[in-house]
């Protein structure tokens, strides 16, 4: 084995680090526009999915323009404020105090002319963030559609929140008890009672993610409480 001097080792390390830093930053810069585009398309697909419109990455932008007819930003008193709903980053918003948050609302107009109101959700799962969108019927109480996603929940367990069988039972559930008392939707271990209007089944083996999802629903939806109560029709 050759013997290398200390100087050689220093120069070797410096050159290696500089070359690799250049390579990685170049790759990151060149690929950024593609990645951003993917994220934007995915967000549009998620919003569409929450009003039960199926889309593919190719037609998502067109369908979004067709179905999402309005969007605005609220504060937690339900008043409109300035800003573009689509670019609000929920990751930043949930770390702000409740009264400073920007709360986006997307209004979807469905094929039959009725409207669905979409709100974004974000919270902490077991391994990383979980998020989603939930849409409400014009009574601002009954869930019209929902979609959840996650960064790295356990496949086969917590990751099941992103699947159809878990999301389906949310449809038709209500977030207000007797139309006035905010109760959110509970995710119950051992299964929800069959006639329950405010609870769904949790995932076996995915209890922590299920609980995290329940906490996310509660903390995100309660922000819209005033708005929902004011604008129901």
């Amino acid at each position, binding site marked *: 084995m050759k013997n290398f001097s200390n100087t050689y080792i220093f120069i070797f390390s410096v050159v290696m680090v500089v070359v690799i830093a250049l390579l990685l930053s170049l790759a990151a810069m060149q690929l950024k526009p593609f*990645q951003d585009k993917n994220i934007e398309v995915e967000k549009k697909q998620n919003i569409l999915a929450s009003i039960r419109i199926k889309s593919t990455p190719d037609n998502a932008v067109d369908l979004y323009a067709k179905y999402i007819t309005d969007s605005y930003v609220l504060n937690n008193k339900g008043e409109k404020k300035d800003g573009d709903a689509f670019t609000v980053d929920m990751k930043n918003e949930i770390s702000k105090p409740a009264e400073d948050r920007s709360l986006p609302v997307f209004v979807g107009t469905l094929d039959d002319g009725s409207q669905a109101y979409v709100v974004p959700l974000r919270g902490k799962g077991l391994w990383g963030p979980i998020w989603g969108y939930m849409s409400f019927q014009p009574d601002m109480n009954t869930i019209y559609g929902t979609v959840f996603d996650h960064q790295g929940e356990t496949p086969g367990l917590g990751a099941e929140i992103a699947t159809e069988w878990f999301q389906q039972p949310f449809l038709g559930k209500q977030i207000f008890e007797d139309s006035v008392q905010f109760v959110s939707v509970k995710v119950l271990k051992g299964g929800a009672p069959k006639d329950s209007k405010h609870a769904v089944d949790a995932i076996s083996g995915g209890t922590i993610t299920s609980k995290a999802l329940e906490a996310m629903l509660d903390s995100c939806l309660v922000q819209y409480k005033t708005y929902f109560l004011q604008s129901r029709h």
Partner: protein
Amino acid sequence: MSIFSSKNFKLLTGPLNLQNPVTVQILGICSALAVTVKLKPAIVMGISVTVVTAVSNLVISWMRNYIPPRIRIIVQLVVVATMVILVDQFLRAFVYDVSKQLSVYVGLIITNCIIMGRLEAYAMGNKPWPSFLDGLGNGAGYSMILIAVGFFRELLGSGTLLGYHVIPQSFYNAGYSNNGMMIMPTMALVLVGVIIWIQRSFNKELIEKE
């Protein structure tokens, strides 16, 4: 030496059986437990590890005469980490849905013992082309075990394969139910044990002498 001489061919096929990184060398067990609940992540993980092992073997082998031995582990780590970040960035830009499937596992490739093991044991002392083949072979040996374990865990644990239901409803009606144990990491270890048992009963030379 032709590019597929019998010696080179052995580099590809050896790791599939007698030199298998998972069942014989007991490397990379951690990810075999983590990603095999479902078949699809197991397949994608297998492919990614194969790509990273092969390419980093190639790069390290090119550099092997210039790498100072005292910092060789750091150099290997830097090469592997760079590869993994590049793979991750490319997946995110061009095959976004696959990248979402893999999520945290892409980062986990860095910690896979097989990659560092092959760099240290093979690429540091051999020419680029054989090193590349060695990486491919070991990646394939690893993928093979992962896919086998993933197949049985998804089939018996969830009754599906690649997300499609394959166990007919009539079985469930007759009293069959999915085995919840299969979803737990413990059963991955038991399955790997069973594979090792089967492999050794066919290959007596693998059994240690007392």
